[in-house]
């Protein structure tokens, strides 16, 4: 029971208390397990099973159903290129190719240093700003192949501890689906969604 930090265990207790039945907390706890260890390990899944009262096999059955639970070593930066219909119509395959070529990482894989993972994904709801790319699920819209190459170089050289969607949009983005309007101070610290109850969101400059 020492796999998780006191802070993570406190979060797990809070999350479970929100649901009428504790099994419902499996999905958020899987994210906690990923944040603790960088990806989802066998021990992480066993821990989730202990907290939610189901077997490790049941946890694995859930984790394997969803694409965002990464059961293999994943880089500090997960670059997800949308290649669904609206992005494809506006050149997403070329953007994906640029990311793969510049990083040397084919889709579905991670570099040796554990810095970058590259994947292509289905629609991420940014069709009006196609083609779209996410880094650790933080969105950049209107990405060209050249900007995608710059993004890869920036992640490798600047190694930002927090990836912020506004900053990346400013540096590497173009047309957006709609006016984002409101400045975003927080960002992601790893290849899992940045969300307050999971403790995975941090403000720029921190971390």
């Amino acid at each position, binding site marked *: 029971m020492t796999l998780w930090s006191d802070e993570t265990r406190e979060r797990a207790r809070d999350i479970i208390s*929100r649901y009428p039945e504790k099994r419902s907390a499996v*999905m958020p706890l899987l994210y906690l397990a990923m944040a603790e260890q960088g990806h989802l390990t066998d021990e992480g899944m066993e821990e989730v099973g202990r907290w939610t009262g189901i077997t490790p096999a049941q946890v694995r059955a859930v984790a394997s159903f969803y*694409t965002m639970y990464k059961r293999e070593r994943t880089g500090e930066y997960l670059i997800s290129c949308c290649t669904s*219909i*609206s992005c494809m*119509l506006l050149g997403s395959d070329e953007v994906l190719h640029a990311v793969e070529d510049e990083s040397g990482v084919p889709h579905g894989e991670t570099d040796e240093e554990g810095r970058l993972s590259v994947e292509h994904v289905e629609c991420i709801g940014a*069709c009006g700003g196609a083609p779209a790319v996410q880094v650790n699920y933080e969105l950049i819209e209107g990405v060209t192949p050249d900007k995608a190459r710059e993004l890869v170089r920036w992640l490798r050289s600047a190694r930002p501890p927090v990836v912020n969607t506004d900053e990346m949009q400013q540096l590497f983005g173009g047309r957006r*689906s709609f*006016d984002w309007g409101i400045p975003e101070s927080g960002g992601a610290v790893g290849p899992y969604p940045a969300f307050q109850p999971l403790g995975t969101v941090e403000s720029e400059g921190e971390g």
Partner: protein
Amino acid sequence: MTTPLVLTRRMTDYPSSSHTIDVYEKSGGYEQARRAVGMTRDELVETVKESGLLGRGGAAFPAGLKWSFLAPPRPSYVVINADESEPGTFKDRQLLERDPHQMIEGIIITSIANEAHDAFIYVRGEYPKAARRVQAAVEEAYARGYLGKGIFDSEYDLELTIHLGGGAYICGEETALINSLEGKRGEPRLKPPYFPAAKGLYMMPTIVNNVETVSNLPHILSMGTDDYRALGHHGDTGTFMFSVSGHVKKPGNYELPRGITWRELIYDVAGGIRDDKELKAWIPGGASAPWFVPYHHIDHEITKDVCADAGSMLGSGAVIVMDEDTCTIRVAERLVRFFAHESCGQCTPCREGTTWMEMILRRIEEGQGRAVDLDLLLDVSDGISIGLAWPPKMTTICPLGPSAVSPIIALRDHFRDEVDAHIEAGGCPFEPRSAIRDPHSANQETADTGQRIPDDEGHLDA
């Protein structure tokens, strides 16, 4: 367009602060939720029925009718479907990020009407920014006593929790969403029971409504059902969010009345086709919808009924526009690939059929197509959606499989010549295949998985 903005009004008036509770309240927010606390379930259900509000998630089911199915046992639950993932759709993301309190007020009204004290918002995992904005708004609402114990100084308790998805399109199907929220694989449930309003979350009565649907509720209560109905056209009430993408000059979300024509939407609202090219086709309601073509449909009014009569649907409001240079085989392949990837795997026709369709389309595009391929596609499609009828006659638990058939119907009805051209030319006549490989090229698939391509009769080689 002269119709007043409703759902997107606040984000237009207060571009950098529409998400805050102060701006929301300053512009009349939470007055209707406060009113609803003093109303009965019957009053609220009748009001929503009278408004004619149709669900905005894709199926366009009457919201008031859905509420009226709520079975007697308690506790009941309210679940908001913010798992927007139909390709082409990005309207809920804007509503979540830019005006979260509007949705939260709608959730309070929905919960009171359905006597629920626990409500959940299922936000897709790939929308962390939206989830953060909603979380911040939920905390503001708790701090003002609009959520939690004794909301609006009444006896009514309401807890609201955000649940983050894990990246599975199928969880937008309401019974799959409920399974997912129970901590299970997101597989749609066998019907009957047909409606989660009878047996839903933890097998208790549950109302599942879409973000845009509940965002309409404060407006229905504030303007009254007559004025709300008057915003619409021909029985489609209220405004409707269109997500326009693809080869248009001005892609984006547009809140419009229904009843305008496709020509007005594509050319006036969205600025026409990029580089002033010709329009080849468009998908009227998200990846699941059969396509429309200019020579048949451009002057059709955009209403649910006109769309249905023409063999398609408005679905989630996602309009995907293709110009004259678009290869429709490539589009069909990309659409079918989506459904093959997202199939939950429970039903054989969907799991196997979508994978076969994807492989056949890819080989046509890559120059290995055979004369029988269109018939083969239609045959496989018929196994998923009998007779390729609209609305589909399903062989599956949920509509995901039949949705994958829509691009095949389009090829059969409008682009047979393009299929033939690919097969005769031994490749794609539209754009010479560059060195850039498709992320799922057939050759790679064959090498990686040992999958074999069927021969002319559809048999696999020994």
